[in-house]
């Protein structure tokens, strides 16, 4: 890991209390993310990825452990952190035009009107939606709405960007376009990124490092450094033997974790 640790997660645990009892979502997760790094967290559905990200964002308070951003404990959403949700249509304010969806978080941050307009224009251009500023989000396709969500995150000028399976509900072609767009934007703005996904290929394609989570309650099963050259390309990068090796390694880890977990359960029942 190069550079100083910007985000530091120490022995994080999270359980949900509900009427039907306690759900242990995260057992014990620790990792560090350096400034400017692109980190992916990959794990099977329901393993606690969203829970983890919400704890990092200060939207949920952990049951145990701590999250520190630039050495400060995170207790509420920090002003230098932006979030892109999985459910793009639900994260848009349908009564606001695209440009205002991008600028609404900026006003209370004290950004001047001129600067807000400039940021909206610039970030929309960067995500290729320059002409759609005056549209309403519901007039755009899913992939376009997710690009608006990315533009909103960038306009917030964050030091760190958290993304929760942002491309999980768009079609395959749009998805690879969005992955490349994201890598461009990341290289351009140098923003530290934590990207959550259940897609192993996606995690290896995007990341500097991949954290593999196992089933709920999750721990970090493995950390995989990805030293594929940048800029990456959907065809040539994915042709590299190194890429195939890495994705196989991640896949094997997840499969192995599942098998040993179910063995344990079987023995527990016996």
């Amino acid at each position, binding site marked *: 890991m190069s550079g100083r640790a910007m985000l530091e997660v120490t022995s994080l645990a999270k359980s949900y209390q509900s009427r039907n009892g306690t759900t242990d979502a995260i057992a014990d997760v620790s990792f560090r993310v350096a400034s400017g790094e692109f980190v992916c967290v990959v794990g099977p559905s329901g393993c606690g990825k969203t829970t983890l990200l919400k704890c990092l*964002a200060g*939207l949920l308070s952990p049951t145990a452990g701590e999250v520190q951003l630039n050495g400060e404990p995170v207790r*509420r*959403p*920090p*002003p230098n952190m*932006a*979030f892109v*949700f999985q*459910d793009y*249509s*639900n*994260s*848009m*304010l*349908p*009564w606001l035009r695209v440009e205002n969806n991008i600028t*609404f*978080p900026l006003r*209370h*941050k004290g950004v001047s009107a001129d600067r807000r307009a400039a940021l909206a224009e610039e970030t929309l251009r960067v995500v290729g939606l320059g002409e759609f500023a005056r549209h*309403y989000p*519901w*007039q755009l396709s899913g992939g376009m709405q997710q690009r608006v969500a990315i533009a909103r995150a960038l306009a*917030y000028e964050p030091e760190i960007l958290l993304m929760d399976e942002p491309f999980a509900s768009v079609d395959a072609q749009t998805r690879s376009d969005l992955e490349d767009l994201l890598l461009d934007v990341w290289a351009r703005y140098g923003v530290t990124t934590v990207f959550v996904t259940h897609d192993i290929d996606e995690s290896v394609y995007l990341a500097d490092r991949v954290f593999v989570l196992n089933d709920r309650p999750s721990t970090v099963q493995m950390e995989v450094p990805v030293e594929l050259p940048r800029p990456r390309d959907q065809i040539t990068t994915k042709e590299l033997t190194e890429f195939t090796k890495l994705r196989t390694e991640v896949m094997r880890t997840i499969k192995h974790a599942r098998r040993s977990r179910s063995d344990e359960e079987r023995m527990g029942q016996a």
Partner: protein
Amino acid sequence: MAKVARDGRDTNPWPGTSFWVGLVGVLLVMTALELVARFELLPSRWFPPVTVVLGAVADLLPTGDLWSEIGRTLWGWGVGLAVAAVLAIPLGMLVGSVEAIYRALRVVIEFLRPIPSVALLPAAVLIFGIGSSMKVFLVAFASFWPILFQAIYGVQDISPGVKETARAYGLGPVSRFMRVILPSTLPYVATGLRISSAIALILAVTSELVVGAPGLGQAIAAAHTAAQIPTMYAFIAVTGTLGWLLNTAFQAAEARALHWHPAQREKAVV
């Protein structure tokens, strides 16, 4: 790419025809009523021909009487509706957002709501006398419920994704209320206002007709007592027209302010 039509309502395949078709329908019914009276299918003494009623309306128009009666009815309607809105919107939003208050008040609300407002008429007369306060009370009581229920429902129906987005971008409770909760609840409240506006007119006219508070209802009763049958029908026609105009105005305002809401969107997007 969906485009917003300039005139949202013209989604029928023959744009511009709906007005003329409607006009033809009105003329047909009026002709039928005219014939019913002319041929004495109903005694024309008690059911005068449409042309005679229209003549009576024409006689009323230049006199100040008609306009002051309309003014009195509208005053009771407007003040009652405003009182209901001022009480029901904040209360509904509070009840809808705090689970404990919702539980505590549900029984009370379920008990009060089914009381037909007209059943309160004798009590209202005893408390407020035969005047406009009595009218305002009845109108406000009846108008209160649809607005209250729409406000409760609206607050409870806010997309959790939108709320979470606002929180993730650091909006505090006040900003979240102003920028997310209020705009999302508004469509429901607008529907409640439109429904209540119709109910308010009914209650205003009923209290005038039954108790004799000044207004269109009393004018109808007075013309009846004086056996000025065409004048009676003229006042009825004016009351009907007033109701229609109010409803049209509320619908237009609703569609204009809330064009982004799914219920209005289908009309606005081609």
